[in-house]
């Protein structure tokens, strides 16, 4: 099979990039795989290119490059095809519309895979007939804006399949949108087996990792740890990760740590890549997010043999952790419950070791080879079925596109009206 992935930016760092690289690298063992990155802002992929995968880009944002595209007039005009409700909309332009269109119209692949809503929409509008169309959703339907939900609600009817990373999200797509004939399948993210030996769970450290972002609720974790230290002052907490363009809680967390007098017990370690060797320094992992569209760090910690205490937040944790067997699930935002669960594992060496071993065994189901097989199976089946759009009448596609254009116009009008109302109210 020739499979072509369309990625926002293969040269940065992020969960979608890492997951796509894992999947592409795994599929490349048996298939012809390419990753097409809309943007390129640095010479080498920060996460290292997956072996055996062809990489290319459409828009060059390297300032020193002779093919730099950032100054193009077309790049200053707002995109008309890329989904407006996608949170990356502002980075897209008439230039990206055209470059992506040219790529998709000439694409000689068996399968084309979009990796974010804006690009999935672009595939439905611009891909030539032929390739099976897959729209991957790495976030969740309920985290999308109203506008984006409306957009994908009619555009996604021209996909062959949507893959989500949790079953809960797949249910949301099945029940929340009317997408007749579109396969909706949940396939979790793959996490490779660590190179390092598993944790012995005998250290006195709790480990957490993720961007220092509000949604991760590290404030809850730090408060919980104040309760832990009050009982077990010999235990300490490391939080790995840095801030990014969407938020940086570092200063606020340092202030909170100071206020609670935890400066000898809680440490913000900064961003570490690869993270793999950090997990075995701990005996317990903790995740206190308000939401996790999947929960990659939970699986990473489990693969290293750590029991994870996680909030039972939407959507991922409860599909990864079997509460009481290979980790603990606690209510969202409840520092006391987090502290209780952590202390439970601290005080019971036997349970901690047993859950660590169980976590390591249970997390093998996320091995990239197994995950890639599921994607491969889906693609193969859709190709065999002949892809709905091979037989799609030009008329039906045309009707859809016209309906889409009308709806687009309606949303734009409604948006303007809303703006006017809000302004009126403020004045």
């Amino acid at each position, binding site marked *: 099979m020739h499979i072509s992935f369309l990625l926002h930016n293969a040269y940065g760092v992020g969960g979608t990039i890492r997951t796509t690289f894992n999947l592409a690298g795994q599929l490349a063992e048996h298939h012809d795989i390419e990753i097409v990155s809309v943007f390129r802002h640095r010479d080498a992929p920060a996460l290292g290119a997956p072996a055996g995968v062809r990489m290319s880009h*459409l828009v060059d944002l390297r300032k020193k490059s002779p093919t730099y595209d950032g100054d193009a007039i077309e790049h200053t005009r707002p995109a008309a095809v890329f989904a407006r409700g996608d949170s990356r909309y502002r980075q897209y332009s008439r230039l990206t519309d055209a470059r992506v269109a040219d790529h998709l119209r000439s694409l000689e692949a068996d399968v084309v895979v979009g990796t974010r809503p804006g690009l999935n929409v672009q595939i439905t509008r611009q891909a030539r007939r032929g390739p099976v169309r897959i729209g991957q959703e790495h976030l969740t339907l309920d985290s999308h804006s109203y506008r984006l939900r409306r957009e994908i609600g009619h555009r996604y009817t021209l996909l062959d399949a949507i893959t989500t990373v949790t079953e809960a999200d797949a249910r949301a797509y099945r029940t929340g949108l009317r997408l007749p004939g579109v396969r909706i399948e949940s396939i979790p993210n793959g996490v490779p087996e660590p190179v390092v030996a598993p944790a012995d769970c005998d250290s006195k450290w709790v480990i957490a990792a993720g961007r220092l972002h509000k949604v991760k609720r590290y404030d809850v974790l730090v408060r919980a740890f104040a309760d832990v230290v009050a009982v077990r002052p010999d235990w300490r907490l490391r939080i790995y990760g840095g801030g990014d363009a969407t938020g940086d809680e570092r200063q606020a967390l340092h202030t909170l740590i100071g206020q609670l007098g935890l400066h000898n017990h809680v440490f913000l370690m900064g961003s570490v890549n690869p993270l793999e060797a950090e997990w075995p320094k701990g005996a317990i992992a903790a995740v206190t997010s308000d939401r996790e569209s999947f929960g990659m760090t939970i699986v990473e910690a489990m693969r290293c043999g750590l029991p994870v205490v996680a909030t039972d937040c939407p959507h991922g944790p409860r599909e990864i952790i079997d509460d009481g067997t290979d980790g603990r699930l606690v209510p969202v935002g409840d520092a006391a419950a987090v502290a209780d669960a952590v202390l439970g594992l601290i005080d019971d060496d036997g349970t901690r070791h047993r859950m660590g071993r169980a976590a390591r065994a249970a997390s093998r189901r996320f091995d990239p080879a197994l995950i890639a097989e599921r994607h491969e199976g889906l693609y193969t089946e859709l190709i065999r079925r002949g892809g709905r759009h091979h037989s799609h009448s030009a008329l039906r596609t045309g009707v859809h596109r016209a309906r889409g254009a009308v709806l687009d116009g309606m949303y734009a009008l409604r948006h303007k009206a809303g703006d006017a109302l809000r302004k009126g109210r403020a004045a």
Partner: protein
Amino acid sequence: MTVPALRPTPPAESTAGRVADCIADADGRITFDLLRDRREGGAPGAVLLLRLRGTKGRSDRVAEDVRLPLSPDGDGRLRAVLPGTAELAEGRWDAWVQQPGTDGETAVEPGIRDLRALVDRTPDPGGTVGGVVVRIPYPTADGRLAVRCWVRAPHAEAGPITFGPAAMTVDGTLYGAELGDDACVEARPAGHPERSCRAPVTGRDGSFSFSLPYDLPTAGPVTAPQLWELWLLPGGPSGSGTGGIRISRILDDIWDRKKIFVYPPRATTGDVLAAPCYSADNDLCLRLEPVQRHD
């Protein structure tokens, strides 16, 4: 508008043979595992070089390169081992690979560094006659592999820091020295040894403890941030000004704790904020800075 065709990314230059995974042991031993380069075929004679940084053109800092033979481990990798008994001077040692029959050296990129054995090291004070030796493989700012080494004999390891109403208290562990009756700690402002200021140190059985007031009597006016180094004088003030043991924190896997070990600042009487901190070399300091006024 015309749309250019796809621009392929040229395949990344092969880094095989140059990415090294490391395993560090508590006794100072480091195992380096390099992916073997197919082109070079793992020719015998390849060497992993460690070279002390900052010695170029400096006769006062001479250190022989450490040459570690790379041998195939049968798993498609090349392995070099730095024994715990090897002597490496304190500093930063950059890693290079030298192929037989070539003059050139290639830098080594850090792979996965398994440093779990370094976390919370508590060497036996009686077993450190030769001094405390710490070696941490780490990624440099430009993405290369280096080894941060400390060799301290004697050594004063800082531990928890607590904050009282007027003073902060540092507890630590002393290796290779005994506290005398007059033992003291000396805070030395960078560049102004005459303004050094001392406080008594207590402790026994290898531990030490001292309290330092936020209002240092010799601080003078603080108009710009000042960094005061903290030295332990186990024999008392006779070693004042020059001698003494630098108080550091080096017995774990953190090669630069400047931004990780952050302590809340306390206001002194003179509109000055005082806070302990660590330098990028893991030395304990006291930072004084004027209170920022926003009105």
